[in-house]
């Protein structure tokens, strides 16, 4: 939060419309989330020109008030109202923080057209008995009647609520830092506040020594003041802290907060007499205890930094002070600390102790050393001025901070090339001046030094380009396209492959789904048909997302369940995704799940239900499309979580690349079929398409049916037929499978239709019959089959 009324102390913005300024600042990259004003409409200065007792009351008055353009009758209950008093008038329509909207009304049968206000009624003062008894607020007699009251009182303050990107959340969150940002945007100078003091002869070294034993405190400054008179803060400090949302405590504590909000540098004030004559900054000991200012006992560990009096902790560095050295009403001398601590360490301590303070937040975001000294001097100045303090000479310090300036050497051309603009050396000079970046210029070459407060800027020309660019205005960039060679964009082979399979599956009627890679241990436990160890995250968010899946089947089952629960029972889906096992081996998989009807038109009796042979057809279609015809087979096997009798391995060139089957009835009551294949295996090279002429000579079609044992697989018979059939046999189709009364219990009949043809002649019945008989005897011999009919 930044108060613009406060910023005015450091930069002239009196001519600015603060809403418009907020837009300018936001455009330059410092995002102002909200502009808050405490302005109250319909609040004007008025003069009581007549004041009479209310006819129906012993304490109310009926007043005639001049509000500039007219006189209004207003009933007032305050004891101090009188003729000639200039007052704050809330006109009908004014909305007060306490008491809501003012309306024209009747008070004990007398018309009243507004309200004369006390300060507490405007939210400018706490409502106490004392405030109530003071009555309405009388403004100075020379105030002009009819003018806006808040403006006249100088209470019209505007606050910017910031939402700044991380890199700027240190230097934009204090008023001087923000003033520099406005200075850059408006090209105006920033004036730092007065930090002059009249130190007394006595030197701090006579009272105090410092020892820093940790490298997590590179910079530590301490000054001392005596004869402090604890009391109330001056109005401007109270008002500004209040606007920021901080309650005024006393002049001393308020000054430490005030300077922090000015310079961004947290200060800590110790009661010098309670502290003793020594400060040692060190790592905390494990188990060391301190009671912090909020009265809570804290247990520290060796990751924390503590300020000690050489013996016991007196402050958790950068987080919160200890009760033992707290500034109280009795405090006479103060030791002021202004230091830099390691941000990561402060962040960790603060979050471990669940203790967040203005200081810890600022340290956590990173703090520059630029104002460490300024802040301590400013605090001394204010203590001298507003707490009667005497400032001792000298300062105790530990200074190991790296102050090597960040310098960037560049040419304007580099800026122009990066942004795609054309600005001159003089323009760049102007921009650097606006930013407050000191620079040298020599024959077209700039050497700019980055102010230490700008922690976000690294010594690269890109960083300077960004600063120049945001002031130049990104809205002023002219869109261009990169001047690069013309070429064709291509998919990486594996992506291209996934797209091909994806499109094919969609054209076969399967819907693509997208599910989570992380699954529950229960899901991960199922369908482990491979010998794979899974990855369990060491620190998952929740157990239901703790294992990296090796199979997509459980995820698709979940999608099935969701849809089934929502009365969608025809579910044909697929997903292509990457899987990882415990060796971090990546394997892309395609998974299909099908259930319900594949093609359905009830009134028309069209009903193709999903079954094993349908999903097998889908898999075959994809494999054939990919060019693997005749290279794959389905090998019956038992696999976990699949129906033991309706389940197979998908084999490519004799190697198993996936599974297909019906989901085991122990997992679901529904008939669900799944198939999953590894894509890696399918990335194999395939032969080019080769044209094959359709047969020109007549085909001879002959049917045959065998009775075989029920365990004999059709595929085996087909293979024997193919072998025996030779070149003349050009097609085999199974057209009937029969079990029942005409065959034995453990037998089945398989009927095939065989097509014979030759590319170069008409076959004679005799030569076909020779082959046909060969086939029959081969099958009979191999499977003990009986020919059923001829």
């Amino acid at each position: 939060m930044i108060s613009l009324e406060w910023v005015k102390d450091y930069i002239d913005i009196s001519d600015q419309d603060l809403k418009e300024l907020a837009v300018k600042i936001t455009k330059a990259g410092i995002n102002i989330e909200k502009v808050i004003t405490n302005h109250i409409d319909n609040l004007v200065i008025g003069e009581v020109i007549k004041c009479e007792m209310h006819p129906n009351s012993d304490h109310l008055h009926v007043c005639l008030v001049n509000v500039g353009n007219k006189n209004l009758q207003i009933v007032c209950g305050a004891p101090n109202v009188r003729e000639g008093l200039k007052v704050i008038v809330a006109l009908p329509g004014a909305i007060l923080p306490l008491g809501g909207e003012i309306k024209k009304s009747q008070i004990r049968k007398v018309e009243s057209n507004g309200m004369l206000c006390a300060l507490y009624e405007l939210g400018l003062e706490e409502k106490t008995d004392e405030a109530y008894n003071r009555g309405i607020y009388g403004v100075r007699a020379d105030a002009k009647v009819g003018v806006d009251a808040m403006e006249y009182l100088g209470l019209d303050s505007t606050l910017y609520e910031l939402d700044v990107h991380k890199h700027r959340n240190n230097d934009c969150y204090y008023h001087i830092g923000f003033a520099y940002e406005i200075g850059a945007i408006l090209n105006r100078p920033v004036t730092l506040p007065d930090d002059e003091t009249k130190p007394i002869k006595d030197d701090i070294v006579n009272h105090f020594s410092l020892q820093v034993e940790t490298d997590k405190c590179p910079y530590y400054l301490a000054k001392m003041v005596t004869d402090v008179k604890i009391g109330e803060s001056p109005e401007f400090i109270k008002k500004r802290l209040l606007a920021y949302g901080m309650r005024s405590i006393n002049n001393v504590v308020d000054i430490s907060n005030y300077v922090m909000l000015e310079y961004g540098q947290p200060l800590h004030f110790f009661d010098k007499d309670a502290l003793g004559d020594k400060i040692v900054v060190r790592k905390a000991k494990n188990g060391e205890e301190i009671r912090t200012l909020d009265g809570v006992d804290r247990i520290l560990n060796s990751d924390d930094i503590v300020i000690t009096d050489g013996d016991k902790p007196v402050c958790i560095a950068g987080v919160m002070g200890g009760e033992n050295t707290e500034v109280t009403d009795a405090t006479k001398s103060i030791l002021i600390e202004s230091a830099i601590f390691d941000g990561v360490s402060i962040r960790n301590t603060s979050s471990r102790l669940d203790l967040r303070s203005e200081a810890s937040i600022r340290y956590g975001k990173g703090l520059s050393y630029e104002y460490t000294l300024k802040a301590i001097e400013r605090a001394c100045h204010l203590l001298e001025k507003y707490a009667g303090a005497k400032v001792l000479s000298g300062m105790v310090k530990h200074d190991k901070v790296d102050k090597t300036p960040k310098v960037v050497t560049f040419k304007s051309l580099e800026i122009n090339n990066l942004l795609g603009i054309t600005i001159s050396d003089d323009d760049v000079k102007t921009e650097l001046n606006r930013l407050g970046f000191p620079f040298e210029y020599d024959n077209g070459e700039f050497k700019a030094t980055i102010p230490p407060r700008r922690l976000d800027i690294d010594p690269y020309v890109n960083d300077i380009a960004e600063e120049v660019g945001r002031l130049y205005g990104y809205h002023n960039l002219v869109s261009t396209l990169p001047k690069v060679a013309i070429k064709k964009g291509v998919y990486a082979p594996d992506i291209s492959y996934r797209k091909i399979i994806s499109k094919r599956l969609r054209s076969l009627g399967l819907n693509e789904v997208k599910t989570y890679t992380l699954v529950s241990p229960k899901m991960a436990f199922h369908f482990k048909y491979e010998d794979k160890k899974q990855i369990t995250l060491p620190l998952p968010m929740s157990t239901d997302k703790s294992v990296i899946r090796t199979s997509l089947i459980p995820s698709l089952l979940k999608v099935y369940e969701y849809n089934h629960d929502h009365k969608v029972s025809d579910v044909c889906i697929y997903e292509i995704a990457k899987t990882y096992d415990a060796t971090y081996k990546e394997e892309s998989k395609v998974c299909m799940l099908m259930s319900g009807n594949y093609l359905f038109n009830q009134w028309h009796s069209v009903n193709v239900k999903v079954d094993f042979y349908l999903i097998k057809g889908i898999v075959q279609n994809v494999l054939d499309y990919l060019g693997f015809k005749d290279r794959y087979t389905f090998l019956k096997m038992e696999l976990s979580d699949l129906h033991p009798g309706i389940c197979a391995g998908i084999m490519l060139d004799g190697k198993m690349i996936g599974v297909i089957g019906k989901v085991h009835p122990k997992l679901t009551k529904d008939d669900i079929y799944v198939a999953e294949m590894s894509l890696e295996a399918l990335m194999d090279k395939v032969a080019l398409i080769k044209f094959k002429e359709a047969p020109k000579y007549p085909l001879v079609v002959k049917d045959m049916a065998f009775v075989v044992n029920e365990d004999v697989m059709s595929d085996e018979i087909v293979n024997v037929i193919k072998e025996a059939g030779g070149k003349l046999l050009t097609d085999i189709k199974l057209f009937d499978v029969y079990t029942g009364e005409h065959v034995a219990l453990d037998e089945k009949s398989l009927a095939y239709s065989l097509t014979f043809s030759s590319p170069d002649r008409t076959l004679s019945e005799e030569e076909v019959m020779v082959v046909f008989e060969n086939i029959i005897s081969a099958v009979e011999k191999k499977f003990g089959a009986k020919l059923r009919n001829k």
Partner: protein
Amino acid sequence: MDLENILNDLQSDLEMVFSEHDLNEVKAKYLGKKGEITVLYSKMKDLSNDDKKSFGANINNLKNEATSLIDGKKEEINTKLLNEKLQNESIDISLPATEFQIGAPSILEKMIEDVEALLMSMGYDVVDGPEVEKDEYNFEMLNLPKGHPARDAQDTFYVEGDELLLRSQTSPVQVRTMLKGKGEVPIRMICPGKTYRRDDDDATHSHQFMQIEGLLVDKNISLSDLKGTFDVIAKHLFGDDCQTRFRPSYYPFTEPSVEMDISCHHCKGKGCSICKNTGWITVSGGGMVHPKVLENCGYDPKKWSGFAFGFGAERLAMIKYGINDLRVFYTNDLRESRIFDRKEAN
């Protein structure tokens, strides 16, 4: 026998014919083996040569005329039969069709392919990288050393120690691509893919989401080139009247960094609940590749420059299709996803 009479008889007989069967009887009566016309030929032998000639011609004429009359009748009967058959076959064409269920793409894949199609036409290759990634590629080489505050914002799933993680962004693919390029070849690529962050799933957060990142590294590339490129993408996705704007932003891996907004397509910039009354919607972030990142990946920032940009696929789809809950993309309610089995407006 008067030939004229035969023809008249035939005509009146044909008038009584209503079926093919009747017609065959009539045909037999006149043209059959003992048909009235056929028998006339036997009378020829009793005639003189001259008479034979004229009589023969007359019978032939008669036969031809009779045949043509019968054929005409046959045609008439067939037409009538066909019409009757067609009438019987008439159906209620308003009954429901047999619907073909062609699969719908995942909304996210559709969104991604939309972007891919455009950028491939502009010469960008589409590449891919692992989802279980090295911390080095996901963070360190992208100017996000350990302890960097911006790592917090991408609270990450670590897989093993602090070295392996589920990638929190697709940027490591950029690193991998640059390393492959060895600082020698220009790069133009996009890398759509899954990413993971420790967010609780709700309407606006998801622990798994998809990014579409792009990278161009070449000679003399500028921020204005990124602006022009973003303009083209925005118009491709949201229509020719889509306006764009750049705002300064911060990412550790780009400098300068920008946030890229499009004019709210819903209210046309007037202000509505979708754009939170600003008229603008942020859809992308990007900037000039940070010189440290170029250096880390083997590209000399003195010679090369480039820009990078990133979109959230979910966010694009939410804006484009008016989806207001992120979970829609991962619930896969077929009643919702089937809507996307459709070509887009041109």
